[in-house]
């Protein structure tokens, strides 16, 4: 979330004081993203340093200081609005890693682990739904924010559903049944051991 650009957007409507900016930010993001006034002032200082905003009130300080957006700031805002949001997934998604690792843990039931995460996601979605249900009908900003979060969570649920089905159709081998060499890189003799005979049981 770019607090910088959110503040520039609020200032594009006209000059504003820091406290007012903080209140308007919270109103427009439906209070889903809380922002303390300190963060607002730090961000404003940086914007001022970079020439994107300026104060039209040299004497004031803190809450008394009023800010206006500069031409450079307006151009930056316009450019940011048109720049595609990062759509590259993070290289390591913790949930994906957890599910993959659970396949290698003896005794771990991957379907149960999937369900724990699925329930958690749905419970989060229920809370966003509540926010939408309790909001005024014309609070479009809040509805859009809650929608975005719910679609993100829904995407995770759909991945969990797909993982569940895939693992049911093609169960991963029980880690306990894997050859000892793969389970623990031990002595060379173990690596050279002949393939496990059926019914020989797991060796660790």
């Amino acid at each position, binding site marked *: 979330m770019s607090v910088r650009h959110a503040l520039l957007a609020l200032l594009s409507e006209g000059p504003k004081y820091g406290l007012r900016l903080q209140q308007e930010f919270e109103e427009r993001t439906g*209070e*889903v*993203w*809380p922002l303390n006034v300190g963060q607002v002032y730090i961000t404003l200082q940086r914007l001022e340093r970079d020439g994107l905003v300026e104060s039209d009130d040299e004497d004031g300080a803190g809450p008394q200081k009023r800010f206006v957006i500069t031409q450079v700031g307006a151009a930056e805002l316009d450019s940011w609005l048109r720049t595609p949001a990062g759509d590259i997934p993070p290289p390591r998604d913790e949930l994906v890693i957890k599910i993959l690792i659970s396949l290698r843990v003896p005794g771990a039931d991957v*379907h149960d682990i999937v*369900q724990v995460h*699925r*329930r958690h*996601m*749905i*419970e989060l*979605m*229920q*809370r*966003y*739904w*509540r*926010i*939408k*249900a*309790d909001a005024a009908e014309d609070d479009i900003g809040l509805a859009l924010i809650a*929608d975005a979060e*719910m*679609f993100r*969570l*829904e995407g995770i*649920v*759909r991945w969990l*559903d797909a993982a*569940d*089905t895939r693992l049911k159709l093609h169960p991963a081998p029980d880690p306990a049944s894997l050859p000892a060499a793969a389970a623990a890189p031990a002595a060379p003799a173990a690596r050279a051991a002949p393939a496990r005979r059926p019914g020989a049981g797991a060796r660790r």
Partner: protein
Amino acid sequence: MTAVLELREVSKAYETGAAEVHALRQVSLSVDAGELVAIMGPSGSGKSTLLTIAGALEEPTTGQVLVAGNDLSRYSANDQAKLRRRLIGYVFQDFNLLAGLTAVENVTLPLELDGARVKAARPAGMKALQDLGVAERADRFPDELSGGERQRVAIARAVVGDRQVLLADEPTGALDSVNGEAVMRLLLAVCRRGVAGVVVTHDAQFASCADRVVFLRDGRMIDQTGPQPGPESLLAPDPQ
């Protein structure tokens, strides 16, 4: 709260040739008046079977189904059908309104099937339409109604009279997310007036509108969501 719909250790097995398929295994579910429960699960997990058994359209192999305190197994098939028509309403994916009947005639149809006279049924039909905000469209035919109005009429038909249980099978299946959400809001509002609702859906968005989400897998109820904390719990500082 009082449980209006109760399934006690319900199992359902179908014989397919030599094999027996267990569609439901020992499912217990209790839905209170005013509560909406969503059932989620993959294809073949038993969601639809659970709904048809809860709606007295099918009998369980073992276990009991109680609707408004009436143990269905104690009733004859005929009396079960009567009970079903009087107490249980259904909403279907395509809403299934009859094209040759007006909105209010569609809504009163279940009452008339149950023996009510046309004139006597109309006030109940009008009240149901009024509760769903479409009373002024009562004398229109389905093809004169908007999609949203048809949904409202279909939900009114499901809860007309003294129906205490509302069952819906993928009612949002053919709708986009915003219209689907509108249907869920209507179902929730209807339940809040004292109806026990169960909605089957594979869609997490719509399921999350429910008070409780129950998860089925291989005919078993494996999990359900817990009590919901308030929305302020989302306002915790972002750890990132």
